[in-house]
């Protein structure tokens, strides 16, 4: 083939649709054929800027030996050709004694057949891409014309390598940008943190073609169930490496690869493109991102731009986490607010209901007094026979009943001012229990007490508080039909960051029908034949007047726990400190 045809053929191949490696192999096949050179080998720079043997013609016998070794620029013949960027030609006789990287123990006896060697820099004016090595068995000399042609050829191959490089790096760049934009989308969509982290791992793995991506959170963060989010499978053989990398990157506060934590094992470990970056927010390491490349060829290796990309992704993740953290806080705050609002509405409802009730009760009270009053006069004045007397006493009994209900209602709606004093809740409970359990109907009720012995005394109206305790305990008694266990606990706790004490009263009375649970605090709500439905309404009002609240934990079929929360300190505390 004449030189021009050869060049044309090479350029044609370089534009074909084949994969990069097969294109270069085809080119090397042609060169080897045309130059009558049994070996046509290309060294290029690896990610550590060392020359390594990457491509060869199909029939190459030396490739499998040479590709085990790498050399620095300046080292051996290949290294010095790269350094000087000028070709070197040798015959077996004049090849220098220090061959550098070309001669290794495994090559012993394998080189004797070759008669001529050519080492050509693959370079254009500005950039060096590698070195082309030719070794021929059936040629004695390389003529000057061939030398000139080979120089042109190597320049051309260098150009081809360069354009591949450019294509590859722009592909890489595009996939990076795509990754980041995908990440951006996920991070700004308000999904829950768990989903967020899973999605991030997935996106990174897909777009970087990684074997696995794992995000580990160092903090018990965001109240998440899991602390590690992985896409792909972490091969057991690299599990230790992953742990090591995570630890190192968190310690050094930068992206690291295996080189940073195991320099001795580097030769082996570099084959895994395994690296890790810290997820840092406000000088605090939230966790680490670890990526394991899949195929050497297409994957990320932690070069300078790799490091940059990983750090960028880690930053994205940290801002995403910050966001979700803010969001969760916001959600909590909103929930607290709406709780408070609900309570306020409840209070308002009670108040207007109270006014209405007071008016109605008042209107009923007068006629009732009149009916009852005259009935009494009747009973006293006339000496009636037995039947009529019975009727009158029925009227009087009913009037008395109505009056006592009215009194209870009016008691409920009436604003009773608090008579606050410092009192011990444990003592209050004991007094109430003493009072109640002296009745024989409490004989078969087992009372289990776990008091906090160090419960501080609190400021409250003990008479009213006892009324609340009696109401709740009586409800339990009624729900259990006089048989079961009541568990009473007192403890210190906090509510909205303020100290509270909690009194919980749990029974085994079968609980409240879930359909009724929202109504039990409503005045007049009752499921009992002779209940007024005011017990809990009054209790709730009293506790609200104390700036506390009552919670209900209902296990339908089992029992109810009423928890009374009371502020442990009144507002004077601040002045006391001053």
């Amino acid at each position, binding site marked *: 083939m004449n030189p021009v045809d050869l060049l044309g053929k090479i350029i044609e191949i370089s534009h074909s649709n084949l994969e990069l490696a097969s294109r270069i192999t085809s080119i090397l096949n042609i060169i080897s054929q045309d130059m009558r050179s049994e070996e046509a080998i290309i060294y290029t720079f690896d990610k550590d800027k060392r020359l390594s043997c990457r491509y060869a013609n199909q029939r190459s016998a030396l490739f499998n030996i040479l590709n085990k070794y790498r050399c620095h620029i300046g080292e051996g013949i290949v290294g010095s050709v790269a350094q000087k960027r000028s070709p070197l030609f040798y015959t077996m006789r004049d090849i220098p004694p220090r061959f550098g990287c070309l001669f290794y123990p495994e090559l012993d006896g394998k080189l004797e057949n070759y008669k001529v060697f050519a080492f050509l820099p693959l370079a254009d004016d500005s950039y060096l891409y590698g070195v082309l090595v030719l070794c021929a068995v059936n040629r004695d000399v390389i003529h000057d014309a061939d030398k000139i042609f080979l120089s042109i050829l190597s320049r051309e191959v260098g150009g081809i390598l360069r354009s591949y490089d450019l294509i590859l790096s722009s592909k890489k760049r595009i996939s990076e940008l795509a990754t980041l934009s995908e990440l951006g989308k996920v991070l700004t969509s308000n999904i829950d943190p768990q989903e967020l982290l899973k999605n991030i791992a997935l996106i990174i793995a897909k777009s970087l073609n990684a074997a696995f991506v794992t995000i580990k959170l160092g903090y018990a963060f965001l109240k998440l169930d899991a602390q590690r989010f992985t896409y792909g499978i972490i091969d057991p053989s690299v599990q230790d490496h992953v742990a090591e990398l995570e630890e190192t990157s968190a310690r050094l506060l930068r992206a690291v690869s295996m080189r940073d934590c195991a320099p001795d094992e580097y030769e082996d470990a570099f084959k895994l493109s395994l690296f890790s970056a810290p997820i840092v927010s406000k000088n605090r390491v939230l966790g680490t991102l670890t990526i394991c490349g899949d195929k050497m060829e297409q994957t990320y290796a932690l070069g300078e731009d790799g490091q940059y990309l990983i750090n960028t992704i880690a930053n994205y993740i940290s801002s995403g986490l910050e966001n979700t953290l803010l969001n969760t806080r916001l959600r909590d705050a909103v929930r607290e607010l709406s709780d408070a609002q609900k309570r306020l509405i409840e209070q308002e409802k009670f108040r207007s209901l109270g006014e209405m009730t*007071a008016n109605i009760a008042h209107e009923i*009270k007068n006629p*009732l*007094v009149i009916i009852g009053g*005259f*009935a009494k006069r009747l009973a006293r004045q006339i000496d009636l026979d037995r039947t009529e007397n019975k009727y009158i006493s029925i009227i009087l009994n009913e009037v008395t009943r109505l009056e006592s209900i009215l009194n209870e209602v009016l008691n409920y709606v*009436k604003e009773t001012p608090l008579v606050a004093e410092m009192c011990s809740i444990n003592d209050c409970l004991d007094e109430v229990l003493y009072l109640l359990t002296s009745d024989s109907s409490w004989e078969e009720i087992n009372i289990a007490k776990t008091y906090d012995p160090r419960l501080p005394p609190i400021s409250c109206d003990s008479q009213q508080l006892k009324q609340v305790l009696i109401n709740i305990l009586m409800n339990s008694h009624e729900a259990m039909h006089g048989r079961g266990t009541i568990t009473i606990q007192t403890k210190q706790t906090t509510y909205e960051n303020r100290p509270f004490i909690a009194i919980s009263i749990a029974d085994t009375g079968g609980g409240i029908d879930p359909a009724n649970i929202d109504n039990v605090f409503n005045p007049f709500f009752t499921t009992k034949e002779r209940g007024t439905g005011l017990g809990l309404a009054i209790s709730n009002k009293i506790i609200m007047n104390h700036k506390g609240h009552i919670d209900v934990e209902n296990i339908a079929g089992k029992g109810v726990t009423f928890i009374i929360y009371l502020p442990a300190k009144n507002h004077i505390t601040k002045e006391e400190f001053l």
Partner: protein
Amino acid sequence: MKNPRILVVDDEENIRLLFKEELEEEGFEIGLASNGFEALDKLKTERFDLVVLDIKMPGMDGIQTLNEIKNIKKDQPVILCSAYGEFKQDFSSWVSDGYVVKSADTRELKQTIKNVLGL
């Protein structure tokens, strides 16, 4: 000894009637007024040993009436009487000499009257 005279003030006719009959039975002489103005008029012309004053009345309520009475007759004994105990904590009701919650059972009312009159 002359029977003690009591003025019953209430906007409900039947309450007035009930109280009148119940109290006359106890030997009191009863005058009636259906609102605060009427009561003040009566007090200006007649002498009563005691006023039983309802609180919830249209126009001038019992508390206001009580203040007016104490303005013209500082030593006039007054018992407030209402459907429920809502005014027990009201400062102005402290000026009264007694406070009774209305009930079909008039024993408490009678007892309070006797206490105030020192009987």
